[in-house]
């Protein structure tokens, strides 16, 4: 029997409790289930969570941190919710194991990366945060106006699924603008303060070149101090996956070859 959970903290948490009670295998509804096609499964969402918690409390003792829901709990929940956005499938294994460790040793143990699994999980979370942070820096908008409405359009390649968080971060910065961020899979569209997510293949919009590019190129090149040249560091800080729309990649390469 397999317990299927949704990509939400509560769903995974109760699946882990139910797994502890029954010994069943856990799997996300988003995981490819070729290996277990023949197996029967049960959806955790259809079970009574209160009963699961009561049974777990009776058998293994009270989970105080879940009852208190303090700062440590919020940190842990946030870690897992961010990790769920990571593109690697092995996140589920780490999340499940870390919840088990939290049940056994407490939240301080896992929140401070004491075990290998907790460390790996927090590293995944770190990568998601880094994706968000880089998106906030590396996204380049093209402003357009249609009548009274102002739009900022951008293309971005997301590894982890962070587009909604990114566009929310831009909401206050570009107050009064409608924002559209297109990725290879999803279009995130913040229109009149409402966020819409659409599949990219169902959205026919080409983001054209911005002539302002040349100003950025001049500004960027003028900032370079040849005596401090360190292209290895620059390449590390702007990974190649961003070079398809960041002009800096080509310039760093030219500096590398002493062409600039």
């Amino acid at each position, binding site marked *: 029997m397999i317990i299927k959970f949704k990509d939400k903290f509560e769903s995974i948490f109760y699946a882990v409790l139910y797994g502890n009670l029954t010994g069943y295998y856990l799997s996300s509804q988003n995981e490819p289930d070729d290996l277990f096609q023949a197996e029967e499964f049960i959806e955790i969402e259809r079970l009574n969570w209160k009963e699961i918690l009561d049974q777990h409390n009776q058998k293994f003792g009270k989970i105080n941190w879940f009852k208190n829901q303090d700062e440590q709990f919020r940190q842990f929940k946030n870690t897992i919710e961010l990790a769920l956005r990571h593109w690697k499938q092995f996140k589920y294994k780490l999340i499940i194991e870390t919840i088990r460790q939290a049940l056994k*040793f*407490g939240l*301080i*143990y896992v*929140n*401070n*990366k*004491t*075990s*290998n699994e*907790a*460390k790996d999980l927090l590293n995944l979370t770190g990568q998601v945060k880094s994706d968000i*942070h880089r998106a*906030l*820096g*590396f*996204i*380049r*908008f*093209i*402003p357009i106006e249609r009548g009274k409405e102002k739009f*900022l359009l*951008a293309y971005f390649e997301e590894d982890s699924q962070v587009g909604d968080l990114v566009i929310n971060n*831009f909401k*206050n*910065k*570009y*107050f*009064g603008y409608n924002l559209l961020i297109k990725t290879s899979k999803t279009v995130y569209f913040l229109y009149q303060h409402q966020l819409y997510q659409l599949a990219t293949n169902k959205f026919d919009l080409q983001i054209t070149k*911005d002539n*302002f590019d*040349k*100003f*950025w190129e*001049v*500004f*960027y*090149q*003028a*900032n*370079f*101090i*040849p*005596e*401090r*040249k*360190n*292209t290895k*560091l*620059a390449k590390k*800080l*702007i990974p190649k996956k961003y070079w398809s729309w*960041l002009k*800096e990649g080509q*310039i*760093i390469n030219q*500096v*590398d070859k002493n062409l*600039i």
Partner: protein
Amino acid sequence: MEILNKLKILTDAAKYDVCASSACSQSNWGSKGFGNMSRMGVCHSFTPDGRCISLFKVLLTNQCINDCLYCINRKSNDRLKTCFGERELADLFIQFYKRNYVEGLFLTSGIYKNSEETMERMIKVIEILRFEYQFRGYIHLKVLPGVSPGLINKGAVLANRMSINLECPTTNKLELICPEKDFKHDLIAPMLSMKKIIKNDKTKIPAGQTTQMIIGASGENDREIITTSAWLYQKVNLCRIYYSAFIPVNQASNLPVKEPVSLKRESRLYQADWLMRRYGFAFQELPFDQTGNLPLDFDPKMAWAILNLDKFPIEINKASYRALLRIPGIGEISARRIIKLRKDFHITSLEELKNIGVVLKRAVNFILIKGKYFGQASFNNKILPILGENSLLPNQNQEQLAFAL
């Protein structure tokens, strides 16, 4: 001159100012309008030298009445001089900001005619941004030497951060490379004005004031620099000091130093500065060699630990937060994690410490875990001869500190 050329010239002339921070936790301009502030700061790009670009850093003009020997914009330099119009610069910045190329504005300038007039024009640029564009984002305004308290106060209302570059650690050194500037009147006095403004009204200059020193241009040593830095942190409440390794960009024959300064020296100064600001080190504790410089072979914390081997090894399960911070390989985050973890657990292994974030190869010779030592038994024998070769001395020279007091 077309705007693209101006941008090129006035950016190129501003790039030696290394401050790139755009972090500001509170806005003095409310939240409604165009633009916002980030608590953490955002890097929008990195130059081929690896420095972060987060701010639209430009000069209003590269014309200057001063003839500072190290400066690319000195009046005797035969370079093309130009100037942005106030509105031209404000409009250009907004175009950069709207496209998310930058997180804010860093406005500096050469001194055209005099400091007051130039500063007025700089403030005009910011007024256009704040009042016409309703810009609520980050602005760092450079204060020009000798400017009056009235203008500083005007800027303090508009800017998030302000700074004036000290360039050298002492009066004597400044005279060598900036003969027209008066250390106390032109540089320290505006700093003290800003200190007073911040103290009296927390909404003004919310991201605090900073400064920059050019490292090695006047032949000063690290002890002089750090001594001045300590004084600036203690008495002027600077939130940060930037160090920029000297790069000879001029052919001035009377420059005291003509060679570029190593970036490693700059890095050591940042490390020492960090120890004072964040790790609770007093400047007297920092280790300098007989020439008054920080050792290049060891970072200052490691050098301090080597000089104070009698204080180690430290039991990880008992040491205070401050004591943990003194162990090489343990930073603020890992020290905090250790303290939190100890409430419920005992740390029992090197692996746990590694997972927490401790750099074991640096820490292992200085710690005990539940009374057990995992370092090299012969560590003292190996390290003491190196110590002898480097002639590290704890900093006992407080004479310089007295200069400003």
